[in-house]
């Protein structure tokens, strides 16, 4: 078995591992480091449950090799809350707007929404729907997710204007 040494910054923390070269990023996170927020729903890049933020882009970590992530900075749902423990506006908005049910897609959905709102801080509902179209949800029918992301955007814009 050929192994590869990888170093990543995950949620602000520097981490290292020796992994089988074929190891996928999602397995590095979940199996090696017990970062189990990102989930596995399909292993074929369709469902988005494994979405993490890698160097400023949303990626589906089930089809990224750990070796490809070497040197990258990765954010998972575990790193979304603020350092003081207060929730990110998206986390709060998902709770306030009933944007989740079983919770399985939620970590990927939140991390995708986090990046999307940086790409488009003032989205229309239609743009939000396209923005999260790589993330599947079976429980909510999406309406309250769209509502939550829209509410978070408004909240973040108010906060930014105040700062």
């Amino acid at each position, binding site marked *: *078995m050929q192994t590869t040494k990888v170093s990543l910054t995950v949620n602000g923390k520097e981490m290292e591992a020796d992994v*089988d070269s*074929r*190891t996928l990023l999602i*397995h590095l996170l*979940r*199996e090696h480091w*017990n*970062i*189990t*927020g*990102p*989930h*596995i*729903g*399909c*292993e*074929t890049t*369709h*469902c988005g*449950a494994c979405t993490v933020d890698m160097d400023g882009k949303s990626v589906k970590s089930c089809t990224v090799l750990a070796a490809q992530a070497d040197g990258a900075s990765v954010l*998972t*749902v*575990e790193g*979304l*809350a603020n350092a003081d423990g207060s*929730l990110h506006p998206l*986390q709060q908005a*998902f*709770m*306030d707007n*009933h944007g*989740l*049910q*079983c*919770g*399985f*897609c*939620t*970590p990927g959905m*939140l991390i995708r929404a986090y990046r999307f709102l940086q790409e488009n801080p003032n989205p229309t509902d239609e743009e*939000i*729907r*396209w923005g*999260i*179209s*790589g*993330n*599947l*949800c*079976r*429980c*909510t*029918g*999406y*309406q*309250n*997710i*769209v509502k939550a992301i829209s509410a978070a955007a408004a909240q973040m814009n108010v906060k930014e204007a105040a700062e």
Partner: protein
Amino acid sequence: MNAKAASKKEREDALEGIGCSRKRVEDPRFTQGKGNYVDDIKLPGMLHGDFVRSPYGHARIKSINKEAALATPGVLAVLTAEDLIPLNLHYMPTLAGDVQAVLAHEKVLFQNQEVAFVVAEDRYSAADGAELVEVEYEELDPVVNPFHAMDKDATIVREDVKDAKEIGGHGPRKHPNHIWNWQAGDKDAADKAFKEAEVTVEEMVSYQRCHASPMETACCVADFDKINGELTVHGTFQAPHVVRTVAALISPLPEHKIRIISPDIGGGFGNKVGVYPGYIMAIVASIVTGVPVKWVEDRIENLSATAFARDYHMTGELAATKDGKITGLRANVIADHGAFDACVSASKFPAGLFMIVSNSYDIPAAHVSVDGVYTNKAPGGVAYRCSLRVTEAIYMMERMIDILAQKLDMDPAEIRLKNMITPAQFPYTTTFGLQYDSGDYPAALKKAMKAVGYDDLRKEQAQRVEDFKAGKTRELMGIGVSTFTEIVGAGPSRVCDLIGLVGTFDSCEVRVHPTGAAIARFGTKSQGQAHETTYAQILSSEIGIPASDILIEEGDTDTAPYGMGTWGSRSTPVGGAACANAGRKIKAKAQKIAAHLLEVSEDDLEWDVDTFRVKGAPSKAKTMKEIALASYSNVPEGLEMGLEAVEYYDPPNFTFPYGAYICVVDVDVDTGETKIRKFYALDDCGTRINPMIIEGQVHGGLAEAFGISMGQIIDYDEAGNVVGASFMDYFIPTAVETPEWTTDHTVTPCPHHPIGAKGVGESPNVGGVPAFSNAVNDAFTALGGVHTQMPHTAPRVWEHAKELGLVA
């Protein structure tokens, strides 16, 4: 002392009880990546299992060579049916009274059937090993078309039961591929109605094979403790106690040494009720190796092998008078159960609750006959946000009534109003003997029609047809009406049981702690429905302890009282009733303690939100919090200490939620593309516990109904290859395709339920599928279209337009 005493309203609000859109207590962990799903569980020394699956739909196994697999680094064992035979575990019982191969023995009966189980140190080596198990097959003719399963020369699917007189105790079989025939209603009366009818219609309405595909696939971690002989299984189980009992029945382990734990479940929709080979193999592997073994299926395995849904092919007939009063109903159904009958159903109902088929209508005579057949397809629970053939029955009826309306040139809403059971007829006994609890069906439909501007929509549609005929547009417009009555809350144990042994009651156990907080445990199991939030609301309204001070726990068979789990929209109707009644027992005991503390008789007390007060002297009072403490220190003589209650609730009847849905669709005739313009859903689920969560359930159910009617199919080709069993092919709607939903409600409490609730989770599936399908079919009605089968994908809709001569 300082602050002014809280008003009654303030005290009620503080409880966050029934009717409050309480925020979910599950959400903080799910939004911070701290959910605890099965695949998150990691035990010391844990191994991983992976299946070798059949590439063929039907083949004889000539040989299995494990050598190369066993030589793979990390692989510890390869198990086949030969290894299970000495344990008598190569077959397992199904919930339908059939047996299912755990690992294929002699023959494989469907593509991707489990053939061997590879146990390895990690999931990568397990997959490597599975690749290297060499299986030699001899291909056999597969039975794919259920309509030909009982042909004289049809290949026999199940050699193991080919001579069995009956399967699951459901009567004589007509053919080796026949499982059972089930009938309901009065055949003579129905035949007479048809003979005397002024008008009749007939249509074969198929509800295609599809799949619930929750975001989390099925998985488990089996952990056998050799020293103590104890087995713990963490798994994706919607009904953990049923799994424990099945495990006790098929293993030498006594039931008290088996502990089943369902942690957080990533969606179920009925896909996680059954017992699957992966669970059994993880358990066997843990017993063999002495360490924990995890099994996690991938998406393709889930779609192609674990619990399909539907596959019901229903020839419906209606008899009616010329002015549209339905006088008779008949249905002949072919049910494709795949290679094993693993249908999730109450033991006595092989076709589930299909007798709900008369729906919301006053139909005097009816008869239905269902034949279950074996084919070379995956077995399964047949559930998908509706487990008991209710959605199939309602879909058929809702298509047939539209077809009848078309024949009589009546409006679909008008014909429904003409045939609906009226409020004065409740409690209403259907021609099949079901007793509907309560409802005002015409009011629901009229409210829906008003909300969408029904008459104007019909005018717009008529104009569109004129414009189409005049060549001014290539787009048609369809209006789908669906009025449905559901049957949920299974169910009264005198008629309903599982595995022929345990009745479909459910349970709740409440303990109030000395400081006035409480824990309540249930036999149900949430998979996203937020039981931790809503059960606490029911209890808080009953016992006056704030919902935030009540912990709800489910899913651990060592601590939870025995229950049938969560499926068939039964948690609120059955578990919720157990919850309310357990609360009432607590309150009754609290009243005795309060009377003792206040030195009055029990009858002198009245309940006020969270406090017992002396009638006429309201300042003499004891709050539930004070009573809780006293229950552990100062109880009247003869009363035992503590404040606990257990309720096993066996419902006297099913509950019958209902609704009226209207869908408006625009159809591009040249491409077959459809666009949902509007979807309005009115639900009446009786008393509403948490409106926010009800609306969320309806949204989700509608999105699933949209997926089913517009795109989902698990199809097989002639060779028995499953077509489209990945998320590349199988249609899971994204946020882009999914329409906006408008929800509405009326409230007609259930008279036999302690708090009047009926359940709602499945309603949007049952009502949604016909609304979408009726809308698409309705677009073509004025141009001669009668019925086109689901799913209404663009190519199929285009084909339909082509058949009608609308496109070249």
